[in-house]
């Protein structure tokens, strides 16, 4: 059987490493990454090789057949998310090893939480069972809340508390929806629901609860208020992990469920509403990002804005032509992956700039371009992808979404894509303008360790490269998809 060991190792390894890092002395905790990262990379690549040779697979845990047991789904989408997680989390871990040397109390608990977060995310990417997704969300969510609280300042604790309450409310709404679906159809397996689900009151109420819960967890406008303090206030590697990966998990669940329930059940009105909220997020998030004075708050609001593009998926695939739906699928997933890479790069390079000037204020970046050109270059490269300029991943994604909008005759989404790009440019250039200005406070800057700059640069370069070589990842991501392309 293909992936017999590598599939369960994707969550078993991080769990084991999480436990191990609790049992070793704090000094040894960061060193576990030298064992863990290569093993996880190998498992991820083995799963990819399995997909490329044998196509999409179902992994039956305990050898029980769903719905009695729990299945894992190893299709293109799941493998794509796993590879994205492995790449981003690996680089964030390398960054954190160096960065956290100056934060000794936080660093001792960052490592166990990182591994548990990773296990939760890989569990979600692989899940085929809607209750199992809930448990995965809890593992990931609780670890994420803990990571926000690591700084232990009153602000960080308040942000973590707010995040915890939002995440719990979201989980409970999701769980209520799952309970209704189980009561109506007697199965928790997505394949079973795909067969059984019909359009009736129970399904619609369940779908509404699930959507609301997941929107709250994804921080889609207007349910985004918990995100900027949590993502902007956390330690830099934590901000990068949360913004790049964690919020994608709840969106991923919504995307999968939307396609599983199918066009008979998913109402077009809801799809349009999700698109409108996405558009609201793009405008509001972009505007708020431009108004921020703290660098990391700007980047956090940029996440609020970029989430909006992902939600254009729903109006573009609901009751549209297969060609438009296929383009929307490609565009949305490219957007998701490109944002993960670019946003991680943006947060890490912002962290480097803050280390260099010793202040989180954007106005203190005056003249920094002379001293830290490399940090600024990574910031700009990531910004290119967020703005959607060619040849970045962000550009490819917007190009595909634009084609899909034209093909499905929904021209109004073009305005969102265009104005959103302009707003991104406005807040990215706000940082650049300050850094090139000559001013009085330019006599000193701290040089952060080289590793920090290199990691940010690698992530930013990946965000560009994925746009140039979009063909192959998109081909993999389509494998086994419900949209009739597999």
């Amino acid at each position, binding site marked *: 059987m293909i992936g*017999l060991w590598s599939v369960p190792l994707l969550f078993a390894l991080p769990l084991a490493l999480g436990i191990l890092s609790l*049992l070793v002395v704090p000094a040894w905790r960061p060193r576990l990454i030298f064992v863990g990262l290569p093993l996880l990379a190998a498992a991820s690549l083995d799963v990819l090789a399995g997909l490329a040779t044998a196509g999409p697979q179902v992994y039956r845990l305990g050898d029980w057949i769903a719905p*009695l047991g729990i299945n894992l789904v190893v299709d293109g989408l799941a493998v794509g998310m796993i590879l994205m997680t492995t790449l981003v989390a690996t680089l964030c871990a390398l960054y954190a090893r160096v960065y956290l040397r100056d934060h000794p109390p936080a660093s001792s608990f960052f490592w166990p939480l990182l591994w548990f977060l990773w296990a939760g995310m890989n569990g979600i990417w692989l899940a085929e069972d809607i209750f199992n997704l809930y448990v995965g969300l*809890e593992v990931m969510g609780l670890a994420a809340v*803990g990571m926000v609280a690591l700084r232990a300042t009153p602000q960080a604790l308040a942000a973590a508390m707010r995040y915890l309450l939002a995440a719990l409310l979201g989980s409970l709404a999701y769980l209520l929806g799952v309970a209704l679906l189980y009561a109506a159809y007697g199965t928790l397996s997505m394949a079973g629901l795909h067969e059984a689900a019909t359009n009736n009151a129970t399904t619609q*109420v369940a779908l509404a609860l699930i959507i609301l819960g997941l929107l709250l967890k994804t921080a889609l406008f207007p349910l985004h208020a918990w995100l900027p303090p949590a993502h902007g206030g956390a330690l830099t590697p934590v901000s990068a992990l949360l913004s790049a990966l964690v919020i994608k998990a709840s969106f991923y669940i919504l995307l999968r469920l939307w396609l599983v329930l199918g066009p008979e059940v998913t109402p077009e009105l809801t799809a349009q509403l999700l698109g409108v909220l996405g558009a609201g997020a793009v405008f509001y998030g972009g505007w708020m990002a431009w108004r921020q004075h703290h660098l990391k708050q700007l980047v956090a609001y940029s996440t609020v804005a970029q989430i909006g593009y992902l939600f254009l998926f729903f109006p573009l695939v609901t009751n549209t032509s297969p060609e438009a739906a296929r383009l929307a699928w490609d565009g949305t997933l490219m957007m998701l992956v490109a944002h993960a890479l670019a946003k991680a790069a943006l947060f890490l390079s912002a962290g480097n700039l803050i280390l260099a000037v010793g202040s989180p204020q954007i106005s203190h970046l005056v003249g920094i371009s002379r001293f830290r050109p490399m940090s600024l270059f990574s910031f700009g490269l990531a910004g290119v992808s967020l703005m959607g300029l060619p040849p970045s991943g962000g550009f490819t994604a917007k190009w595909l979404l634009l084609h899909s909008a034209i093909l499905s005759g929904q021209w109004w989404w073009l305005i969102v894509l265009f104005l959103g790009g302009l707003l991104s440019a406005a807040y990215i250039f706000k940082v650049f303008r300050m850094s090139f200005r000559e001013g009085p406070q330019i006599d000193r800057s701290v040089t952060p360790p080289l590793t920090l700059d290199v990691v940010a640069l690698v992530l930013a370069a990946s965000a560009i490269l994925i746009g140039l070589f979009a063909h192959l990842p998109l081909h993999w991501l389509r494998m086994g998809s419900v949209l009739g392309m597999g």
Partner: protein
Amino acid sequence: MILRIVLAGLLCLGVTVALGWAVLERPMPVENLPERVASAMPESGVEHPITAVLLNFRSYDTLLEIAVLLVAVVVALALREAQPDQPEQMGLDNPLLRAVMAWLLPLILVVAGFLLWAGSYQPGGAFQAGSVLAAAGVLLRLAGVTTNWLDNALLMRAGLALGLLTFLGIGLLVMLPGVPFLTYPAAHAGTLILVIELTLTLSIGLTLLSLFRLTPPYADDPDDARPQEDRNL
């Protein structure tokens, strides 16, 4: 303020009505899962369907739930360590309480053991037994009995992790003949589940107890949350 209460009330009412509607209009499931569970029971290694679902058919969910508990303790440990003060000795040092505890404690341990054992043929199991075990620890602390053996950080962490580690280890070890994760061989399923439940009971008990012990003693009462100097003003 009144507007907010009215809005919240309307929202609650709306959700309640929608839920009621959804439950009343619910179609009858075509899939008969209880029947599937019943027909797979002989291979599960236990006699009670709930235990079979929790620790065999859907054991992966339980594995991740145990991970959630462990993450909760890790977060609590991280927050506790970030606070400069050490946990105070709390509880009433009352001889009567201690005398009652001396009677209660063996009883609690027997009940925990019974609940664990009962899980294989009637409702019960590791979660319930672990909670009872934790209650014993909480009572000890409230009665002011010194529990220094719990302050050994490494031993405590090993105890906390034992359940998940055993569960994970067994899940991986059974794969050696070339079957998927968590596939217990039918002949040994009962024994393996018992080992997992035993270690889970201990870890769940320690987890709940840790969450109680790691809470700063003054956090319960908002009036006491301020430092001593403030209160004297």
